[in-house]
């Protein structure tokens, strides 16, 4: 790696803007002039089966968008209070991934204050700069530097201010513990002094210089340390208000009428039974039907009273049984041919297809929003990873200028890529407008499982030829439907052709933790074990022989060494497997040990040893949480999670039928975090998930002799 000057802005050493938002949006339209017109996907008509729907799904979404416009001035990034309080403003959200702690550290480091002095105001579009979506592991490589630049600029303003006050040169002034100190004369000035001065307005309105000098890693005092969650106290006492806990004076509770199946259209409904109930507000806007009442109980009753009168028109829909054929048939042109076919006549060739099902994020807090109108201004509290995107969706749905909409995102009950959209907020706002009072809408678990979006299913075709030395000579890899992330192979193969083919998704699909890297890495790493078997090589040796990336080699070697792979692989019947991968600037390797019982058929993961490296570690405590969390979440996708559907109905929309990891499923974990202070920090919320499923699948392959070609991993019929 080329050494960087220590003060340079950390630039991601990967292609940062490769994030393509493919989330299907509901696209509500409640414009006054087009009262009964609902765009494309309609209220709950979430089948992306038409061409306009596909067009709506893809591509980045305009101004701000994924990366946001950021803060131009110091004042837009940091509010210095005359009482000494320091509030840092960011458009990022906190959903458990640790942004609040890391951004606080970033500010404290550069302001030269203890982290406990930083108040972090996140994701209130009325107050904070647009830092883009909280997605794609971008808080660490983009927002942490952005906050550091703003804080460093503020510190420089304090120095400037002190210099003018004292008539001294800048090099004689240092900032420590929140004070500019002229060491020689024992004078000091604080950020509060700066704010109280006449110059404050002018100084703070200054643009944040792009090249402002940041604190080098070796001088970090706050960054790089295990700062705990700033609001843990409020969480363990129940004091923190999640979006589904928010109440407003006079607030009603809402319920939305959902179609019986995907693609169903509301033909008619008798609203009278609900309208006849006292204190019940009923709203209909073409396909949108909702009710609101003073109690959640009454709202539910009102909905039940009208639901039975609804007549629906349904259209036949694909089912999960035929999912993969359906995806292959709907690529528009079919899969390309392997360009290397026939080039190596003597070579050993392997051709495999891998299937990854639809799965759900299933964050513990379902979508929730409180909406409140006041003089044609709309305020919404909701749980979303995309505050400014929500504002945009709300403004579009109600035909309002964006500055009349304020979206506030309290720290919420997790997203994992599943909360990029505003449908719940829009629905709450529609009801609130009808009611003339604030409305809280909290999706039920069944609604979340049915009407939120899913991680895309994938059919992956892989074909490779081994040369006489047992190395991969040609590599052909096609992902159908799920996406291009981590699709390219990190191995030094002879020739390669990797391609993503979009299909016509039968369900509403969108982002998920690590996007398609979960599917692509699964297929590639499982395929690699089959190739290793064909070559007669140890899976570890087979990989290392073809792996040039030093960072990926390092994590693979570390995980294998800690797991004692080389000793254990010699044991008879060793039920172990390994896998590695790199994505979004970080590298991961996992070794897994499984235990297989035949009656009843069960796979249990006993132990996972994972090594992870994401450049300079900003917060080892939070990083550990992210890695442990990714292992547990990955375990579910590996062993059990799968959305089943038939003719437009989700067949397992509950935690009783859609099985996520439970406490005693969680394996023993050895986590090894490799710190690279010489490299810029990369995000860590996603990549630690991508090696787990293939490591488990490879362990099952080794233990049973039957290769695994689909998720969730199932034992073959004996």
């Amino acid at each position, binding site marked *: 790696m080329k050494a960087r000057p220590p003060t340079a802005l950390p630039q991601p050493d990967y292609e940062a803007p490769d994030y393509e938002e493919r989330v299907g949006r509901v696209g509500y339209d409640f414009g006054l002039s087009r009262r009964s017109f609902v765009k494309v996907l309609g209220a709950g008509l979430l089948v992306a089966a038409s061409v306009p729907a596909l067009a709506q799904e893809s591509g980045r979404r305009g101004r701000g968008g994924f990366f946001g416009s950021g803060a131009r001035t110091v004042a837009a990034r940091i509010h210095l209070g005359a009482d000494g309080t320091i509030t840092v403003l960011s458009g990022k959200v906190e959903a*458990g991934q640790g942004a609040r702690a890391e951004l606080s550290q970033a500010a404290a480091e550069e302001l030269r204050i203890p982290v406990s002095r930083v108040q972090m105001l996140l994701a209130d579009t009325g107050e904070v700069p647009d830092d883009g979506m909280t997605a794609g592991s971008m808080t660490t490589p983009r927002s942490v530097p952005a906050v550091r630049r703003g804080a460093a600029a503020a510190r420089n303003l304090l120095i400037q201010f002190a210099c003018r006050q004292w008539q001294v040169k800048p090099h004689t002034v240092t900032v420590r513990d929140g004070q500019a100190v002229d060491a020689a004369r024992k004078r000091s000035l604080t950020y509060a002094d700066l704010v109280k001065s006449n110059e404050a307005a002018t100084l703070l309105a200054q643009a944040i210089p792009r090249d402002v000098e940041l604190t080098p890693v070796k001088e970090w005092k706050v960054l790089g340390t295990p700062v*705990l*969650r700033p*609001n*843990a*106290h409020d*969480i*363990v*006492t*129940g*004091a923190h208000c*999640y979006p*589904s806990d928010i*109440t407003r004076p006079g607030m009603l509770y809402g319920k939305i009428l959902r179609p019986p199946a995907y693609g169903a259209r509301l033909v008619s409904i008798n609203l009278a039974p609900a309208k*006849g*109930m*006292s*204190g019940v507000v009923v709203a209909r806007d073409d396909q949108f039907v909702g009710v609101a009442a003073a*109690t959640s*109980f009454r709202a539910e009753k009102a909905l*039940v*009273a009208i639901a039975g009168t609804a007549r629906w028109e349904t259209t036949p829909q694909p089912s999960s049984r035929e999912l993969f054929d359906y995806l292959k048939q709907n690529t528009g042109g079919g899969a390309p041919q392997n360009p290397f076919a026939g080039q190596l006549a003597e070579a050993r060739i392997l051709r495999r297809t891998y299937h990854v099902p639809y799965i759900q994020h299933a*964050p*513990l*807090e379902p979508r929730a929003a409180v909406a409140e109108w006041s003089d044609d201004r709309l305020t919404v509290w909701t749980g979303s990873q995309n505050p400014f995107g929500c504002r945009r969706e709300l403004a579009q749905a109600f035909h309002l200028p964006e500055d009349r909409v304020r979206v506030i995102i309290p*720290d919420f*009950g*997790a997203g994992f890529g599943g909360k990029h959209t505003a449908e719940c907020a829009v629905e709450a706002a529609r009801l609130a407008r009808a009611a003339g009072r604030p409305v809280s809408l909290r999706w*039920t*678990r069944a609604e979340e499982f049915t009407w939120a979006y899913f991680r895309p299913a994938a059919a992956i075709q892989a074909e490779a030829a081994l040369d006489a030395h047992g190395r991969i000579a040609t590599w052909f890899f096609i992902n159908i439907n799920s996406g291009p992330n981590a699709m390219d192979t990190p191995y030094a193969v002879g020739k390669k052709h990797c391609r993503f083919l979009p299909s016509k998704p039968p369900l509403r699909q969108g982002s998920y933790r690590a996007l398609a890297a979960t599917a692509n890495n699964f297929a590639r790493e499982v395929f690699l074990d089959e190739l290793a078997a064909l070559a007669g090589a140890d899976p570890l040796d087979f990989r290392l022989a073809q792996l040039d990336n030093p960072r990926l080699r*390092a994590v693979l070697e*570390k995980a294998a060494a*800690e797991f004692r792979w080389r000793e254990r692989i010699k044991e008879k019947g060793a039920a172990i497997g390994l896998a590695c991968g790199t994505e979004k600037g970080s590298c991961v390797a996992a070794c897994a040990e499984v235990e297989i019982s035949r009656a009843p058929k069960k796979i249990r993961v006993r132990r996972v040893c994972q090594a992870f490296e994401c450049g300079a570690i900003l917060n*080892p405590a*939070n990083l*550990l*949480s992210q890695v*442990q*969390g*990714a*292992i*547990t*979440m990955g375990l579910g996708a590996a062993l059990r999670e799968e959305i089943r559907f038939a003719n437009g109905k989700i067949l397992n929309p*509950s*935690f009783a039928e859609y099985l*996520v*990891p*439970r*406490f*005693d499923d969680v394996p*023993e*974990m*050895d*986590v*090894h*975090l*490799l*710190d*690279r*202070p010489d490299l810029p920090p990369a995000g860590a919320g996603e990549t630690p998930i991508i090696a787990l499923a293939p490591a488990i699948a490879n362990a099952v392959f080794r233990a049973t002799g039957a290769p695994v070609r689909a998720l969730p991993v199932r034992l073959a019929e004996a």
Partner: protein
Amino acid sequence: MKKPEPEVFGAHSRRTFLKSLGTVAVTAAASRAQSVAAELEKVNGEQTVGPGPVPVTLNVNGKPLKLQLEPRVTLLDALRNYSSLTGAKEGCDRAACGACTVLLDNLPIYACQKLAIEAQGHEITTVEGLAKNGRLTKVQEAFVAKDATMCGYCTPGFVMSLTALLQKNPQPSADEVRHACAGNLCRCGTQPRVLEAALQAAGVAAARTTHTEVMDYA
């Protein structure tokens, strides 16, 4: 305002079905025929209340909480939506996730599966009732110290389950902790930390569950 109309239920969700029958149905299903008859006799002898709101008094965190509730309102909804105790969370409303766990006479229960009227006369403890005078309990302290929260939505449920465990069994083994948490889901993956926090709160040496090593490369 119009007169309240007769309440007609066109369709029953599983929940309204269960709620309408209450625990009687569940008990009956699990009992022998004669006890079914006995239950029915008892129910028939009881005075009908509702369907409109009726006065309900709950003993929550040592204080009486007087509410007007439709008899089919769950304890969870009563706490969250009819008073301001939102510490217990709703994650599934189907007894699957445990985010709504509260203590009923020191036993952990799913508040989404208990009717509020049935909870009368019992001591109900929610997560808001644990810390006294701002002092966290050992379980809460350990959750903070072990960084056992991520999004935190499941945390109150875990805290309640573990509070109940430690009251009954002050020195649990790791397996006993796992068992006590079997009814609580966490999607962020805090389980290893929750286990450590529980053992720390109990003053039991932590079993080896997680190894972390920060390797400096430079």
